[in-house]
């Protein structure tokens, strides 16, 4: 199962890299959102999936699942969700103000 998830994370990383290298703003933002999903999936997979009981005191078991990666992932998901929303709004405002959504046109001029 870990191997499968690592492969999925790799596929997501490559798709998101492709999207980030395109020129349209919306595709770049979507690429970054996918990039963070890939990183979260990898964080979950590399530290091992279900290895034992849930880490509660009343679960009498010889082995427990490590809860730390889940906590890290949750923190990171919240941050990347908020930032994706912010980037979408910022991209929309930039499009409304400048009229461009192509990164080539958003390069800026020498003297303004």
């Amino acid at each position, binding site marked *: 199962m870990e191997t499968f998830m690592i492969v999925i994370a790799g596929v997501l990383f490559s798709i998101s890299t492709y999207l*980030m290298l395109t020129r349209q*703003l919306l595709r*770049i*933002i979507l690429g*970054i959102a996918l*990039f*963070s999903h890939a*990183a*979260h999936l*990898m*964080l979950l997979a*590399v*530290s091992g999936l279900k290895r034992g009981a849930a880490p509660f005191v009343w679960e009498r078991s010889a082995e427990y699942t490590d809860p*730390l*990666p889940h906590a*890290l992932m949750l*923190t*990171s998901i919240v*941050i*990347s969700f*908020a*930032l*994706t929303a*912010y*980037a979408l709004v*910022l*991209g929309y*405002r*930039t499009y409304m*103000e*400048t009229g461009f959504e192509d990164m080539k046109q*958003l390069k*800026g001029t020498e003297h*303004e």
Partner: protein
Amino acid sequence: MNNLLVIPILVPLLAAMAMVFLRRRIYAQRAAGAAALLVSAAAALVLAEQAARNGMQTLQLGGWPAPFGITLAGDMLAALLVLTANIAGLACLLYVFGSIGREREAHYAHPFLMILFCGVNGSFLTGDIFNLFVFFEVMLIASYALLSLGGRPGQLRESLKYVLVNMVSSTLFVAALAYLYASAGTLNMAHLSERIAAVGQDGPLTAVSLLFLVVFSLKAALFLFFWLPGAYGAPPPAVAAVFAALLTKVGVYAILRVFTLIFYHQPHITHTALIGMGAATMLLGALGAAAQDRIRPILAYNVVFSVGFAVFGIGVGG
């Protein structure tokens, strides 16, 4: 256990929360901001004195013992950096009062500045590498808001690029943390240092350390500084001064911590990379400054090559 460690993080955060409710009272906001920075600077001064006398001060948040909970650690370096950051911040803040304009001050510029200081102080004082990521994000999110506040087309365009570059580097930070946790099984910096010293820093761990180097170079504008001149030219000069004084330096501090505390066993790879990138940054920054004919880009390139000097020192000395 020393509760003083949490003061430079908590006081700016509480000040920011209070300021949101005092939106129309700009003078109250200004007073609260200056007071919060003075209090954190005073706390850092006392902390530096205690660190000089008794060695490193630590605080286990929530009372969880060291490798399991989040640790705040203040040694002499961290305490002095917090002190310097808050004094520099106070100087910039006095200039912010007169120069950024009523409109920005009424639209939460002061709370965002306080959140920025909370993130900076937290990054200096944390002893847990994931917590470093969280404080980096706190600082960066405040800087995104400060950059785009005002909404002129040029400003929006530059802050969009800054946000996108930093989102990519933050995601790489998460990926590097995943590799590190999978191979070392801990995220507490002191514990990481012990474990990596025990098992040895082999090839994969060195590769992870280089991934950390890429992440911190993007944040510190070390060699990968292509985003900096545009982004630091967009906000009002006083805000750009805060950014120049604090944001890239937190990245340099992270490089210093990671490569002197955790990954110091393969200096012929990691420290050679630091020296090379530092030297390239110095040269390219100086050439970039020489090629400009306006004062703001020249100052922005000055930030770039000062980062080069700092990291070159870390590479040679570490």
